[in-house]
């Protein structure tokens, strides 16, 4: 086990989560190095999405603590955690369907803006300026994921791959330090997967974000992650560089069963 250090943007100690009698996660000591792309893999039902939900505050942890940028965030609400700099996407795309593409991204900007009720009513120059800046930022994010031309479409009307990218743009609009992607390549064709890998690399290179991604597409995970953690039955059974994971006996057993 690696001791937590300053270079870790997020780390957890002995993190666990139970649902009634069921242990969904136990003894998770996750370390995410700043500025890296980290993969999180494991068979279905291993607890990957549950881990995301615990990290982002949707489920409070049953045991252990979560530290983000050296600050404990274990029992914070999701919206607080987002404002501290963690943003996520969802496995089963959750866009605001009857809002425009641009408005979806502007929602991501919500926690970086401040205008309130009085501001909405009176719209003095500072308020208008804030809105203009938010719009500009949102448009930048849209052009980053190549959706600028669709800004006035309704989110519901986008193609599947575009919706995935819109979710990423929405998350990026909150200017997170750590981006959690839940199966971004799910349902994509090979070409789209390749484009997505490029996009994720650019998020790291150009925007200097740290990325943690859950992915079943091994080509994607192995291709872009510098470090991979493997979950099975709620436990972290291995972690290491992609080539180590590829040959790890525990991991092979988890995926293929004991008989393999």
């Amino acid at each position, binding site marked *: 086990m690696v001791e937590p250090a300053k270079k870790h943007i997020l780390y957890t100690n002995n993190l666990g989560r139970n*649902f*009634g009698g069921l242990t969904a996660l136990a003894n998770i000591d996750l370390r995410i190095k700043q500025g890296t792309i980290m993969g999180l893999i494991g068979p279905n039902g291993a607890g990957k*999405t549950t881990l995301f*939900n615990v990290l982002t505050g949707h*489920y409070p942890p049953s045991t252990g603590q979560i530290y983000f940028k050296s600050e404990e965030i274990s029992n914070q609400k999701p919206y607080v955690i987002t404002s501290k700099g963690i943003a996520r996407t969802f496995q089963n795309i959750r866009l605001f369907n009857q809002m425009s593409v641009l408005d979806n991204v502007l929602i991501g900007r919500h926690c970086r803006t401040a205008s309130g009720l009085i501001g909405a009513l009176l719209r003095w120059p500072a308020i208008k300026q804030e809105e203009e800046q938010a719009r500009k930022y949102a448009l930048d994010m849209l052009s980053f994921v190549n959706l600028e031309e669709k800004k006035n479409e309704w989110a519901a009307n986008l193609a599947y791959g575009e919706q995935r990218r819109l979710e990423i743009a929405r998350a990026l609009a909150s200017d997170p330090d750590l981006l959690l992607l839940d199966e971004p390549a799910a349902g994509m064709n090979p070409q789209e997967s390749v484009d997505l890998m490029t996009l994720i690399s650019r998020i790291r290179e150009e925007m200097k974000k740290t990325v943690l991604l859950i992915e079943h597409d091994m080509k994607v995970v192995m291709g872009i992650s510098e470090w991979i953690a493997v979950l099975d039955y709620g436990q972290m059974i291995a972690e290491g560089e992609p080539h180590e994971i590829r040959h790890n006996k525990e991991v092979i057993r988890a995926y293929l069963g004991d008989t393999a």
Partner: protein
Amino acid sequence: MFVQQLMNGVILGSTYALIALGYTMVYGIIELINFAHGEIYMFGAFVGLLLVTVLDIPFFLAFLLAMALGSLLGVTVEYLAYRPLRRSSRLSALISAIGASFFLSNLALLIMGSQPFSFPNPFEAKIYHTPLFIISRVEITVLLSSLILMIALTFFVQRTKIGKAMRATAQDKDTASLMGINIDRIITITFAVGSALGAAAGVMVGIYFRTVTPTMGFMPGLKGFVAAVLGGIGNIPGAMLGGILLGIAEVMGAAYISSQYRDAVAFALLIIILLFKPAGLLGRPAQEKV
């Protein structure tokens, strides 16, 4: 005096419990507040009344017929107002439910007029004295029939194959349907059973309070729902417990605090539960899927 009030509370509460069961069963299966349930209760009372007074049918038979017709109405409401919206948003389904409730109560008002009807007492007005309280024959009937219906329901849900399918559907509709359960049929049966209990409660309240009006479903309907929430919505024993407790709270509130605020007791209780224990007394906290 206190024991007498307690007893009155239990009797009133047993009718709330019957209404609450209908809410809780439907909510357990399709997660919808069946607002029209109070109107099924009103309908049951009217059917019972008309059968007894106009057709001169023996009370017991009228009671069963009211349950059967109530169940038919419940299934019809489900078919017309809820089934088409099963894939729509929750908001749409709720609005449709409110509309169905409003439609039925005002239709009854249109047909029957706003004058209250009085329910003839089907039994001789006999009163039994015990050392602690007095109880009439009607009250014993109400209490006993509620008890029998609740036991029958528990048996049905726990021991029969359909009951098992109902519980499976409540847990997970998709998996249940993959296991070969016909979800539409189970939902229909749930409405049928829940509505039969609601109609039964209507008849019982008819003979207990002796008056029947088209708008009588509104208040008890709301209170039945409060009882279901109090016990933990979706939870069958919870609905029974919630009903009895609500009945006691209301009678005690009226007796010892103020009778004018009798109807406010239930709602104050509701807001208190929602504040401190939204999952209800016997319910488990809902874990929302992300």
